[in-house]
Each structure stands twice: as structure tokens, then as C-alpha cells.
């Protein structure tokens, strides 16, 4: 029994030491008061809890609290209050406890204060009255924390923005592709049309049949060159490095019209004799080959360029 009493005394002693740093001592050693705030640093959009604790040895009704005012606060608003009584046996000794909790919310950034509270109480056994004061508490009000869901609007906005950008990009790309395809189609159509014109022009540049002293053999070489290049471009065939008989095979494989193949061979065979036999060729032969080639170029342009065809026919 003696040991229990010593233990209780030691417990109360250490308990009183722990609180002593926070509590304001009253006139009577029987009640101890302590004040604390959790947390000490509170964001502007959050709350802190200020706790005033009264504690004494004995029964709960040993003392009568005659005055307990709400604390005075600066830069804070009390938004909630609560109180609780508690009786506890520590080391065989009964301890009574009363807690008053104030939930406060800061008004603005900076420092906030909870002034000391004056507590008056009376000892029911002796009838004496006492006065206590709690310590003044300081709270630091810091920048508000982001509220959950506060960025949702931003995410939605960014999503909309991103979707819009993607949509704009896709639309522009599709339009660019269409424009490019149209441009290519126009270009292709233009080049198809101009192929015959191009080689017709080249033929006229290479051979001028009006020249009285025209070298017929050399002219045959140039004529065959124009024809080979034209057919190579038209059918995408390696006709530049092909012999006359190979030209026939290549054109047939490429699906060229029989009449075109026949005309081609007529020109190239005449040209081969002129180019390689060493014998002087007749001018009439050159004119015949020229007319065949001109007809090939004119025939090909006819479906697309009626005016030019008509001019040639004239």
C-alpha cells in the first residue's frame, strides 16, 4: 500500500512536470491549467484546435468552476466549441480533468493569438475561491493549402484546350493532305498533258526540216533520241539503254498499243539504218519518220489538248 502511494505521488509529480511548461499556475496548487493549440502553424483555409485543460486530484465535484469565459482571440474566429470531463486513476490516486476545446479559423495571414483565460473556481470543502489564468497562445497563419478538387477546373480546361488543339491539327492536316493531293493531281495532269508537248517541242528544236542542207543521217540519230526519251518517260522504261528489238519487247510488256509499237519500230529501224550503216539516207525517209513521230505525239495529245491537235491536223 505504501509502495502504491509512493508510485502515485511520483506519477502526479512527473505529470505535473510535463504540463508545467504549458500551464499557468493558479493561486491554489489543487487545480492546474494548461493551454495548447494544434497545430501551431495553421494554413489560412484550415482550422486549429485550442485546448484548455483543468486538472486536479480527487473527485470531479471537489471544485466548482464559477467563471470560465471564452478566450479572446486576435486574427481568429471561434467556429466551434466543445468540453469534456474525465476522471482517471493514476497509481491508485484519482485525478479529475476538464477539457475545453475551441476550433478556430484564421482571418488573415500573419500571426494570430489566443489570450489567456481567467478561470475562477471554489473549493467545495473549504468554500474558498481561487483564480487561475491560462497562458497566451500564438499561432502562425500561413498560405492556404490547395483544396481537394481545386485543380479540376484546370484539368478540364487543359483537356478541352488539348482536344481543341488536336482537333485543329487534324483538320489542318487533312486539309493540307487534300490540298497536296489536289496539287499533285493537277501537277500530274499538267505533266501528262505537257509530255507530248514537251517532246513535240524538242523534236522541232532538234530537227528543222526546212533546212536545205540538213544532215539526214545525223537528224535520224536525233529523231530516234527524241522518240526513245519520250517513250522512256511515258512508259517508265529503260529504253535509253535498249536496242530496237528490246524496245519492242519492253513496250509490249508495258502494255503499249500495237499501233504505237509498230510506229516506234518503223522510226527506230529507219534510224538504225541511217545511224549505223554508213550509207546516206534519203531525205524522204527522214520526213516519213518525222511525220510518224509527230503523229505519235499528236495522237497522244489529242484527247487532252484539242486545240493543239487541231493545229497539228491542219
Amino acid at each position: 500500500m505504501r509502495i502504491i502511494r509512493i508510485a502515485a505521488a511520483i506519477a502526479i509529480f512527473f505529470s505535473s512536470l510535463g504540463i508545467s511548461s504549458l500551464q499557468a499556475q493558479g493561486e491554489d496548487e489543487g487545480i492546474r491549467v494548461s493551454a495548447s493549440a494544434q497545430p501551431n502553424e495553421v494554413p489560412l483555409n484550415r482550422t486549429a484546435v485550442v485546448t484548455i485543460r483543468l486538472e486536479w486530484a480527487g473527485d470531479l465535484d471537489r471544485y466548482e468552476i464559477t467563471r470560465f469565459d471564452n478566450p479572446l482571440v486576435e486574427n481568429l474566429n471561434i467556429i466551434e466549441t466543445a468540453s469534456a470531463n474525465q476522471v482517471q486513476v493514476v497509481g491508485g490516486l484519482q485525478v479529475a480533468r476538464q477539457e475545453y476545446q475551441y476550433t478556430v479559423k484564421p482571418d488573415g495571414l500573419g500571426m494570430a493569438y489566443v489570450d489567456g483565460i481567467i478561470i475562477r473556481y471554489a473549493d467545495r470543502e473549504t468554500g474558498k475561491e481561487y483564480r487561475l489564468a491560462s497562458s497566451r497562445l500564438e499561432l502562425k497563419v500561413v498560405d492556404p493549402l490547395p483544396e481537394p478538387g481545386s485543380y479540376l477546373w484546370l484539368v478540364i480546361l487543359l483537356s478541352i484546350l488539348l482536344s481543341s488543339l488536336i482537333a485543329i491539327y487534324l483538320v489542318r492536316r487533312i486539309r493540307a493532305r487534300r490540298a497536296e493531293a489536289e496539287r499533285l493531281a493537277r501537277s500530274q495532269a499538267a505533266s501528262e498533258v505537257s509530255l507530248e508537248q514537251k517532246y513535240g517541242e524538242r523534236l522541232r528544236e532538234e530537227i528543222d526540216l526546212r533546212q536545205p542542207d540538213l544532215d539526214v543521217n545525223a537528224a535520224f540519230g536525233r529523231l530516234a533520241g527524241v522518240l526513245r526519251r519520250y517513250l522512256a518517260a511515258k512508259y517508265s522504261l529503260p529504253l535509253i539503254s535498249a536496242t530496237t528489238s528490246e524496245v519492242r519487247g519492253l513496250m509490249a510488256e508495258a502494255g503499249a498499243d500495237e499501233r504505237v509499237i509498230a510506229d516506234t519500230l518503223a522510226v527506230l529501224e529507219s534510224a538504225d539504218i541511217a545511224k549505223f550503216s554508213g550509207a546516206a539516207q534519203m531525205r524522204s525517209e527522214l520526213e516519213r519518220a518525222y511525220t510518224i513521230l509527230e503523229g505519235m505525239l499528236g495522237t497522244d495529245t489529242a484527247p487532252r489538248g484539242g486545240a493543239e491537235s487541231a493545229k497539228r491536223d491542219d
Partner: protein
Amino acid sequence: MNIDIQAIQAKIERESAFVEKITAEVGKVIVGQNYMIERLLIGLLADGHILLEGVPGLAKTMTVKALSAAIKTQFQRIQFTPDLLPADIVGTMIYDQKNGSFSTKKGPIFSNLVLADEINRSPAKVQSALLEAMQERQVTIGDTTFPLPAPFLVLATQNPIEQEGTYPLPEAQVDRFMLKLSVGYPDRNEELEIMRRMTRVDLPQASAVVSPQEIINARRAVHEVYIDPKIENYIVDIVFATRKPKEYGLDELADLIAYGASPRASIYLSMASKAHAFLSRRGYVTPEDIRSIAMDVLRHRVIITYEAEAEEISAEDVVRKIINKVEVP
């Protein structure tokens, strides 16, 4: 310069009359192989020796024998073996005990047509003796030099698949052959005809229908076939493309060719194309003739690199690319 092409044409018509006879006679024995027969005639007309390469059984030897039988001329076949000696080909000096002097014993090379069968079976000294005679067209036995008869044509065969125990011809000696033919298999119908013809009791024989003089006259006519400077330039372009492919837009071949064709290629290409034109009864050479004969003239003259071999690119692939790239006149 105006060439009397009509006169040349008439001469060629006249001198080439034997071609049909000889072709018909060889055709009695040989089925198909038109490519080989035509090339043999080109060699005969252009005075160029021919190396025939092909697997056994493709009638290489039989074709040469049939050709020689169709010409009233001397024919000798020499089977090259590892123990053959140069004297077995060119001849030797024999001591005559009665007279106490040496007499000359001419070898089988003293013939108009010589078939050197499986030439790569004999050592280099024997090959050299033959190839020297081919080049010089004369043989020295003892102190005396003997000219070889005209026409003189060597047709050598070799088998590409059996390399063990053979003596491959050096590039310098292969270069002395005007054409190297790659003899292929007959097609299905030809194979049927060969089978039927060769299983008969009476095997067909070719008769002599052409005299050596006709061949010599034809050779003269071949020399007269007109070759235009444009065609000559085309030949030189093709040969130069084997040496400097980059200048002809063939950059991809630069690392594949170790050595390009020699000037002999240009000479033989010109001669063979004339002979080809002659066989076509034409008095002038066209690019068709060049394209037709170029592979046979060039395939053994373009030496490919190890890189090309590693990539399984043959000399024929290289020549084919060149022919297909160089612009025809």
C-alpha cells in the same frame, strides 16, 4: 563518208551462204544449243578461240565434233589429263637411228580445229603451251618454228562444278579466249528429241559441206562489215564502264569490280559483233550485235572483288548491269 553498203551487203549475202549448210549439218547431230552453235561460228569467223563451260553431258564435245565434221578440215581432240606434257600437244624431236639425226614429230595442235577437252585438268605448263600457241599461232619445236594451219581455232571445255584436282586457268590466260560460253541445259522438247535421237541404232553423223577456203573467204567478208564510229564508241563505253563504273552512273559497282576488261575486250567485241552481223546477213553492226555478244566477251574479263563474291554477285551480274546502263547510240 558514204559507205557502199549495198556492195558489202551483196558480198555478205554471197559469202554467208555456207552458214545455212553448216547449221543444218550440225543440226542433224545436235538438238537445240543454237546459242552454242552460233557462238562457235562467231569464233570461227572472227578467228577467236572459245572456252566452253558447262556441266557434263550438255553436248559440248559433240557439238565441236559435229562442227568440225561439217567443215572439210583437220580436227584433233586432246583430252587434258594431269599427266599430259607440253610435248604431247605441240610435238617433239625424235631421234632417227637410221639417219643419226632428229626429225620433227608434230603434235595434235597442228590442226584447223583443236578441241582441248577439260583444259583445267592439266597443269599450268601444259595449259601455257597451248595458250601460247593460241596467241602466237605458231609453235617452235627444237630450233624450228612452225606456223599453225589456217584456219586455226581452239575450242576448250571445262567443267564448273568439279574443282578438286583441277588447275584453274589464270585470268591472263583466260583473257586469250575471245568468248567464254556458259552452256545451259536444253528445254523439255529438246530433251525429248535428244533422247529419241540418241537411242536410235543409227546415230546421225554430220557430213563435210564447207571447205576451209569458204571459211577464209567468209572471214575476209566479216572484216569488211561496216562498224560505225558511234558503235565503236558504244563498245569503248561498255569496256570503260567495267573500269570506271562511277563515270557511267554505276556507283554501286565501284566496290564490286577488282579489275575491268582489258583492251582485248574492245578488240574482240568489235570482231565478234562483226561476225554476229555477218551471221544476221547484215553489212553493218548495230547495237543489237554488241548487246548480243557482250556477255560472252566480257564475263571472263571482269574480275570481281571479294566483297562481290561475299554478296554472291557474279561477274555476269556486273556485266549485265553495265550493258543495261550504258546508253545505246
